[in-house]
């Protein structure tokens, strides 16, 4: 029998190797995090003691708490801003500011992270020196809000584009105020997009390293910045355990996001 049209030999193997390449480093890292040996690279039996150690290290707990607070605040701001902008940009075809607004919202995606990092650093240093503006962890929250906006925006916009406006019009026809129509009709329908956008923003904020490292100082260390300072001191089982925890958090969040945002079969 002739092979099906459009079939190329080795594609399956190539794809399998691709996934090995993609996942092997993470598997190795997770595996070594359970290595009992103090010398991280030499296998000395299974152990979970490094996890206990990680959780009892005071610096890590504080850094994780900072990361969490930053991510929650940045996600809330970014999501609210994104909803407000998306409602205008998707629905108002005649709005003259649509083009520039889209360009503005996508800007954080286009500028290389290192450039954003140093520009934000100089800006905050100047604000501190000239007008005494320094919010500490708040500075990091502001910076994160900026680059989280496009990530929150994309799923919300996608959901809005698929949404039917007739229900909202019906609510308005039945004398619902603009706010009530939004609160009781639009927002519930928009919720899957909002949840998806918020989760993406959360992961992006929680994982950010370069920008945070540039603008963070003593007392405003986040988890990735803390892990980087550990890595600088060499490969240790503690780093492997802390990294594994972060990998698991991201993987769980993204998988949940995928289930929430997946197009429903009707």
């Amino acid at each position: 029998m002739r092979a099906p049209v459009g079939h190329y030999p080795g594609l399956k193997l190539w794809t399998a190797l691709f996934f090995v390449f993609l996942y092997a480093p993470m598997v190795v890292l997770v595996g070594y995090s359970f290595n009992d040996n103090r010398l991280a690279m030499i296998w000395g039996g299974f152990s979970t003691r490094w996890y206990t150690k990680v959780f009892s290290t005071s610096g890590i707990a504080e850094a994780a708490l900072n990361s969490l607070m930053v991510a929650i605040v940045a996600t809330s701001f970014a999501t609210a801003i994104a909803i407000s902008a998306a409602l205008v940009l998707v629905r108002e075809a005649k709005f003259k500011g649509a083009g520039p607004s889209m360009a503005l919202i996508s800007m954080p995606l286009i500028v290389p992270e290192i450039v954003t990092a140093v520009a934000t650093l100089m800006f905050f240093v100047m604000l501190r020196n000239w007008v005494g503006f320094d919010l500490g962890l708040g500075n990091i929250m502001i910076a994160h809000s900026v680059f989280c906006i496009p990530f929150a925006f994309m799923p919300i916009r996608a959901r809005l584009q698929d949404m039917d406006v007739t229900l909202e019009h019906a609510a308005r026809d039945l004398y619902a105020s603009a706010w009530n129509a939004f609160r009781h009709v639009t927002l519930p329908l928009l919720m899957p997009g909002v949840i998806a956008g918020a989760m993406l923003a959360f992961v992006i904020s929680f994982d950010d390293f370069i920008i945070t490292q540039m603008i963070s100082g003593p007392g405003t260390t986040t988890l990735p910045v803390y892990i980087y300072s550990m890595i600088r001191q060499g490969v240790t089982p503690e780093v492997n355990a802390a990294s594994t925890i972060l990998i698991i958090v991201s993987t769980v969040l993204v998988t949940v996001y995928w289930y929430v945002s997946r197009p429903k079969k009707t």
Partner: protein
Amino acid sequence: MQRTATSNWLGVAPAWFVIGIFGVLPMFIMLAISFMVQDPYGGVEWGYSHEAYIQFLFEYDLDDSLLFNPIYINIMLRSMGLAAITTVLCLIVGLPVAYFIARQPEEKRNLFMLLVTIPFWTNLLIRTYAWILILTRNGVIDARFQALGFEPGTFDLLYTNEAILIGLVYSYLPFMVLPLYASLEKMDFRLIEAASDLYASKWQAARHVIIPLAKPGIIAGSLLVFIPSIGAFIAPDLLGGGKRLMLGSLIHFQFATARNWPFGAAVSILLMVFVMVALLIYNRANKGQGVAMGGH
């Protein structure tokens, strides 16, 4: 719902306010700082100077005459070279994968795409760090060589250009696969059947049907890989040993260690120019694509 121009502007105002003040304004301040005088204690002194841009190309000789200094040009060329090779490697690896996934039944396709996206959302720092475990002396691969009786250190790629390249490809491969998949998924596979019926070989079909149809994905993916690669910091830092090997590490060094703001700002501006040029080429290529499609 009736909305006026004013209420429309009110809706996008928070985005303009936050991104405008904390995203765009700092970029313009950075441009200004690149033309100021360095304060050796970090920060800048008021006053115009294009010293930072001269420093990129020249150094001062003992008698204050300018001497061409290739060190930063070399870093720039190395960055562009590594970013270009990364882009090509991602394309070579990613195209067959995206094609394979696009041809799967829907359920499987979604699962594969989830598998492609998970690393994409996993901390880049950690994913790059994991490569140290694999590439280093006494690492996962070297240990296998030692088990076979080779000397320790037979396999030790850490702190080489190859290691940086592996790290970059690994970091940005999903950025290539996602847009490639997006354009191949919409493809009408009957076109390949038609090509085959017209006695096109498999490779002719690939060259004349699949690749042209994947072109928007190829262009978008190349842009998404090239831009972050050229400004990468983590891969050259962790896998290249942080020897100021790429533009990203050079910028980082100016702020973290050398405290030369104007020079760091000038290099950042240069990087932004590259990004702008890449975007312009992208727009041009996309327009060409539109015309070609319209012509059919």
